């Protein structure tokens, strides 16, 4: 309480010019999810870290043409997708030029090779005449963010529809040296609890994608209806890699909740719930 009061007293004393930086740092804020400095290179744009599956699922991605949507008019866009394997190593890339507001991409072998499950990011590039058009109407420099929509469908049910979820978290980009980087950062330990009830009749897969250039510890706990911890699992997720956590049958007897601790200020997972041949997918 004393520390809180002291911090409140210190806040007004922070010089105005430094406020945007200092107030996002401890002791004023322990939960800032992104670094505050933005790289300065032409057409810098950031992407969520998306999941693709080519195991028993197939994946489509709906990419947005941000400039076309902003100008309310079709604009030629070079979409580039970078795919990473379970260890976070680049396993393929794919370029496509399109003018539509949205691009539908079926993720296949030509893009990811034999990799069954991994992460990917989306980057865009526009010709100068189009960015000049944006600059002529915008009074501020705008940075595009790619949050797209990923759709999953069971491979053994190709006549069905894709179940979609939107981008989750990330702020990854390819820098001017063609190197993958991220604005996401680790901070103090946070505890994330999705508002979701796990049922003993279903099988669950939780995919955690690490969007930072550092290894990340995660501790996953299942709690029964009396808040007793009935299962606990700790692991390390390497930089830019992903981790899959599965729950099926045991150890769940009844309905329970799941929670996890990590140093990501907001650590969301992509969740697949399967009951027989039916499934649901959502972000936590």
């Amino acid at each position, binding site marked *: 309480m004393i520390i809180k009061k002291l911090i409140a007293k210190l806040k007004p004393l922070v010089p105005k010019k430094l406020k945007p930086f200092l107030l996002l740092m401890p002791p004023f804020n*322990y*939960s800032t*999810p992104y670094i505050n400095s933005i790289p300065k290179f032409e057409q810098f*744009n*950031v992407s969520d870290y998306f999941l693709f599956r080519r195991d028993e699922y197939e994946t489509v991605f709906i990419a*947005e043409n*941000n400039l076309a*949507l*902003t*100008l*309310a008019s*079709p604009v030629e866009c070079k979409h580039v997708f970078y795919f990473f394997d379970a260890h976070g190593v680049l396993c393929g890339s794919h370029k496509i030029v399109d003018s*539509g*507001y*949205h691009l539908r991409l079926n993720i296949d072998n030509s893009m990811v090779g034999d990799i069954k499950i991994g992460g990917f990011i989306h980057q865009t590039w526009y010709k100068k005449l189009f960015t000049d058009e944006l600059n002529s*109407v*915008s*009074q*501020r*420099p*705008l*940075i*595009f*963010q790619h*949050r797209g*929509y990923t*759709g999953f*469908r*069971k491979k053994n*049910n190709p*006549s*069905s*529809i*894709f*179940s*979609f*979820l*939107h981008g989750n978290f990330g702020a990854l980009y390819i820098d001017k040296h063609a190197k993958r980087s991220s604005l996401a950062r680790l901070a*103090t*330990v*946070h*505890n*994330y*609890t*999705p*508002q*979701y*009830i796990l049922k003993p009749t279903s099988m669950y897969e939780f995919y955690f994608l690490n969007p930072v250039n550092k290894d990340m510890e995660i501790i996953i706990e299942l*709690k029964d*209806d009396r*808040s007793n911890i009935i299962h606990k699992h700790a692991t390390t997720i390497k930089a830019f890699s992903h981790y899959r956590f599965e729950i099926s049958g045991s150890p769940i007897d009844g309905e329970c*909740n799941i*929670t996890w*601790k990590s140093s990501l*200020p*907001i650590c969301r997972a992509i969740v697949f719930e399967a009951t027989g041949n*039916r499934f*649901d997918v*959502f*972000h936590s």
Partner: protein
Amino acid sequence: MSDYLFLTNIGDDFINSISISKFVPNRRIKTKEYIEFKVVIYTQKKDALIWCKLDEVYFNDANNITLNSNDYDLDVGQLAVVVPCLLDFICEDIIMSLPEPISRKLDSSPVNERATISFSRGELSSSYQGEFPFAMSRVKGTFLAFDALIGEPHKKVSSKIVFINIFSKELPVKNTFSFNVANSSNKEIIKTYEYVHNSALIVDVDNMSDLSYVFYSKDTLGIPIFITYGEGEEFNLSVEHTHPPSELFWGDDKFYGQSLLKSKWMNTLP
């Protein structure tokens, strides 16, 4: 910032459910694990200006509350707003404006105060983590969304948009508003639907068309939920909301970007 949750009846044998837990959605580890609250459910009929209390639900000893639309006698398109409240908050049976929901955010951890919002039909079910921000319920605003989540053309597949609109302040009169479906290429209106404040507009989208759509209202804001489903055992169900246009931009200028984008579209759409 705090958030409302909602239930609605969208017809066609769908059941809408929400699940909410007493666990704090995101917190630093020294912050307490859960908060004590209850949820109160209010509804406003299409022609009414008053909110009527439908239910008041407590966790008791449980960690979770699940609410189903078919537990309440909701007309198609009628909205039930779920308000997280402190345990000692007195919830009147009839009110003119909605109470502010409590915040389930206890420290500076970034989080949307969500619930699992599910739609099920027969044995199929699909969900997303959703909410309706209190701040959005205080302003009239405008609405613009694109068709990214409308599936590929398929004879046996149907798509719906459920447009949720909550206005928590007292209403002096119930105006009728327009929700438009337009061709995003030539900007011409294809169809217009009427709706009112505090309702769920259900729009069936023709997904056999090659057209690309833009959905908009110059009258109010709202949250669009896209539902795609098929007739037959082989089909899955997809439920998701689109990002608001501000999410196309990064950083401090994201709302400036949204304003620019919206003005471009709204100035060319009829």
